[in-house]
Structure formats: structure tokens, C-alpha cells
């Protein structure tokens, strides 16, 4: 008799299993944060979410003697980033060290689904622009840079896939147009490919890495491809990212084309990076306030 009941019960669950088949399950949190470490991830913020995003880099100059306690130099990008809809995000920020002011729009085209009904990967397009507010006159002689030429643009197609609950991978074909060109032999347009990965170590902790391969480099100074190794840590409304990188700049066009150090442990090559994101929700998910 007990067999009989068991059979009838699993029969009921089987019916429910068939009913579930109609719902589409989107994969959540391929990267969780809008940045993997230095570059954008396919993630966009949901509608009504404001992120206060502060990114910092600390490094030593490599001089023999230094008066600094922790680091000789530091740079910070302070930005506000907002989810206009569940798929469209925008953000504006300014960086202290290189004097770049930047803004971007990001739109999620394809969302990965856990079953076979939707996309097998995430696809997001990013368009960003930056304005270089530096004065170049004193260092570079007569070279006058008009305000039009101070604008640089980055277009990215971000493609990512969450292969398992612990592992996500991203490939990002990138086009960079630089406005400020300091030598006539330097190219203005660059093609680059970004690679990013995230491995979840524990429920709130993940290991991330990114590398950008720049196909046509700037010739007037030595530059290297940016690489980063970091740890992402999520605690409720606060998300922290710690990283080691050779990239000093925060804006895509600057760090993809103009990273002047290689990744190794000699100062000034290695930067310690620290990003803090505080998330504020302006839209509440539950409409009815009944208990």
C-alpha cells in the first residue's frame, strides 16, 4: 500500500514538472558586477538601481627614495551608474589622475537561459566616450588640441557565457577611436579583443581575471596589454573588488591602448586596485504593501 501511495505522489510531481516546461529561466549573475575587474562585463543593472561606484588604484613611482607611507601615487574614478531599464544602463564618471571624464551606455541584447529555449550566451553592446581635460601645452610645445579632438570613443561587443554555476567566460571584440594623438605616427583607431573570466570560490567570493589584446599599438611610447587578477566580494548592498593590475587608467580607451607598464612585480609596474560599489534601489520590486 505504501508503494502505491509513493507511486501516485511522484506521478503528481511529474505532472508539475511538465507544467514548468513553459517558463523560461534566464541565467542570473554571470558576473554579478557591471565590471569584471577593470573592463565592463555583460551585466547591466536592473531598472531603478543607482550605483555609487568608486574605483581606486595605488602604485609606487619606482624612485629610489620615497616619502610615501603606503603608495606614492593614487588615482580614483568616481561615478554614478544607473539602470534606465532592465536591459539599458548608463553611467558618468571622472578620474583624478589622468583627467578623463567619461560616460557610457550599455544595452543587453541577448540573455542566456538555463534551458534550451533562449540564447546560449549573453550579449551586451557598450558605447562609451571620454573627454580628456588635461592641458598638453607645456609638455608638448605648440601642439594645440581642440576640444573636438579631446574626445575618445570605445565600442564593445561583450559576449559571455556562464558555463557552470562557478565559471563564466567573456570575450569582448573592441574598437577604440582616440582623439588625443601625440605623435603623427600613432594610429587613431585600434582594434582589441578582451578576455575575462570569473571563478566562484565561495558563495560570496569569486576570482576574476581579464586581459586585453591590442592588435595595433601606439608607436610613440612603449605600451603593453593590460592584465588583471582580482577578487570580487559581495556583501548585500556593498560590492568590493580587489585587484592587481598593470593598468593605471580606468576608462576603456585609455587602459586598452595606453598602459605603459608590463605586468610584473617591479614598481611602478604593479598597481593595487580597489573598487567599491554601493547599490541604491529606487524601484521597489513588490508593489502591494499588504503583509
Amino acid at each position, binding site marked *: 500500500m505504501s*508503494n*502505491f*501511495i509513493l*507511486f*501516485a*505522489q*511522484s506521478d*503528481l*510531481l511529474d*505532472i*508539475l*514538472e511538465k*507544467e*514548468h516546461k513553459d*517558463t523560461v*529561466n*534566464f*541565467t*542570473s*549573475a554571470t558576473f*554579478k558586477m557591471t565590471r569584471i575587474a577593470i573592463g565592463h562585463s555583460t551585466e547591466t*543593472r*536592473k*531598472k*531603478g*538601481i543607482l550605483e555609487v561606484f568608486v574605483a581606486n588604484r595605488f602604485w609606487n613611482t619606482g624612485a629610489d627614495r620615497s616619502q610615501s607611507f603606503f603608495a606614492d601615487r593614487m588615482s580614483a574614478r568616481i561615478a554614478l551608474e544607473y539602470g534606465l531599464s532592465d536591459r539599458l544602463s548608463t553611467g558618468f564618471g571622472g578620474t583624478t589622475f589622468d583627467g578623463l571624464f567619461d560616460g557610457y551606455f550599455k544595452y543587453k541584447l541577448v540573455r542566456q537561459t*538555463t534551458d534550451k529555449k533562449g540564447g546560449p550566451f549573453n550579449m551586451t553592446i557598450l558605447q562609451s566616450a571620454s573627454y580628456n581635460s588635461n592641458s598638453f601645452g607645456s609638455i608638448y610645445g605648440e601642439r594645440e588640441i581642440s576640444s573636438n579632438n579631446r574626445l575618445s570613443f570605445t565600442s564593445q561587443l561583450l559576449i559571455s557565457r*556562464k558555463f*557552470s*554555476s562557478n565559471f563564466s567566460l567573456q570575450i569582448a571584440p573592441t574598437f577604440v577611436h582616440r582623439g588625443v594623438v601625440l605623435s603623427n605616427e600613432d594610429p587613431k583607431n585600434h582594434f582589441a579583443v578582451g578576455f575575462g573570466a570569473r571563478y566562484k570560490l565561495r*558563495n*560570496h567570493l569569486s576570482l576574476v581575471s581579464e586581459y586585453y589584446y591590442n592588435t595595433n599599438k601606439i608607436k610613440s611610447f612603449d605600451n603593453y596589454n593590460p592584465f588583471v587578477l582580482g577578487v570580487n566580494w*559581495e*556583501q*548585500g*548592498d556593498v560590492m568590493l573588488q580587489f585587484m592587481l593590475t598593470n593598468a593605471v587608467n580606468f576608462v576603456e580607451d585609455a587602459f586598452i591602448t595606453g598602459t605603459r607598464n608590463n605586468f610584473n612585480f617591479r614598481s611602478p609596474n604593479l598597481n593595487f586596485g580597489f573598487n567599491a560599489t554601493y*547599490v541604491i*534601489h529606487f*524601484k*521597489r*520590486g*513588490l508593489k502591494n504593501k499588504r503583509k
Partner: protein
Amino acid sequence: MSRFIFVLLFFTLHTQSLEDDRIIARQGQVSFFSYTSVENIKAENNQVLSIVDLDNGTIAVSMLMNSFVFEKALMKEHFNESYIESDVYPKATFEGKIVDFDRSTNAIQTKMIKGTFTMHGVSKELEIKTKIERSQNKYIFSGTFEALVKHYNIKIPPLLAGNIADTISVNFRFEYEPYEK
């Protein structure tokens, strides 16, 4: 021989339990609350499936953890990714039996439902007090029960221990109608 009897039983079961004997709820509501002095967390799922076989009083419930809606969108992401791990355990299910179910009465009855609740890969025996209302061929099941977070192998980081209650109260309400394929 025993297999033959089993097959016979199977057929008699199928001929006896007519389609009319099963009722289904496709938009069942399950919500849970965590009250602490730091933060109140509330989530709702309005797409919970449940089916009842009136013939023998067995019941099954199945819900997708992904379908829970939270006050904050980021909470949903944390819930799915860091707590309930819905990639690995997409569903929570319950299967059980209504104790002393009286299908003849039209009056409101309060019954215990005994069964197994499975969530985050952990199965627990539960007894849930349920109010059963009937109007013609519609049934409404509703009730409340409490679940301990630590029973289901859900780890809360020490920094957030103050934000999430040890005991989560769960409310449910299912409206059933006759099951047709």
C-alpha cells in the same frame, strides 16, 4: 508476479483516478518573510504549481526559486546566486498527504498536511496546518509555517548574520481548479 500485480495496480489507479479527481493551482502564491532589527526581507512567488489528488488526498507543490520577487532587485540576485544556489537547485518541492481529508464536506476544514519538503538539496519532514475552503469545484488551501535557515544548509556570512533571521516564516495560498491536460 509481484511486478504483474504492480502493473495491475497501476492500471486500476489510472482507471479509478479520473481527471476530475485532480485539481491544480497554476498561480499559487508563496511568500516568505525574515524579520530582524536591521532589515526586513520579503519575497513573493506567484507562479507556484500545486496539484492535489482528491481521491487519496495526496498533494504535490513545485516552485522555481528564480521566480521569487524581492523588494530589491539585487537581493534576488544574491538569493539565487549566493544563498539558495538556484543554478544547482532550481526548484523547491513538497509532496505529502492531507491527514483525514474529507472530500464530501463543503464546510471550511483545517487539516494537517504531512510530507517532505525539499529545498537547496535538503529534504525535511514537515507537518503544515492548512485551511481548506471549498466553493463548488474550486478549492482554496492556505496557511503559514516556519522554516529554520540552518536546516537547509544555507550559509549566511558572519557580516550579514544580523540581516537575515534564523527562522523564516512562509505563507502560502493556492486556488485550485479541476485539472485538464
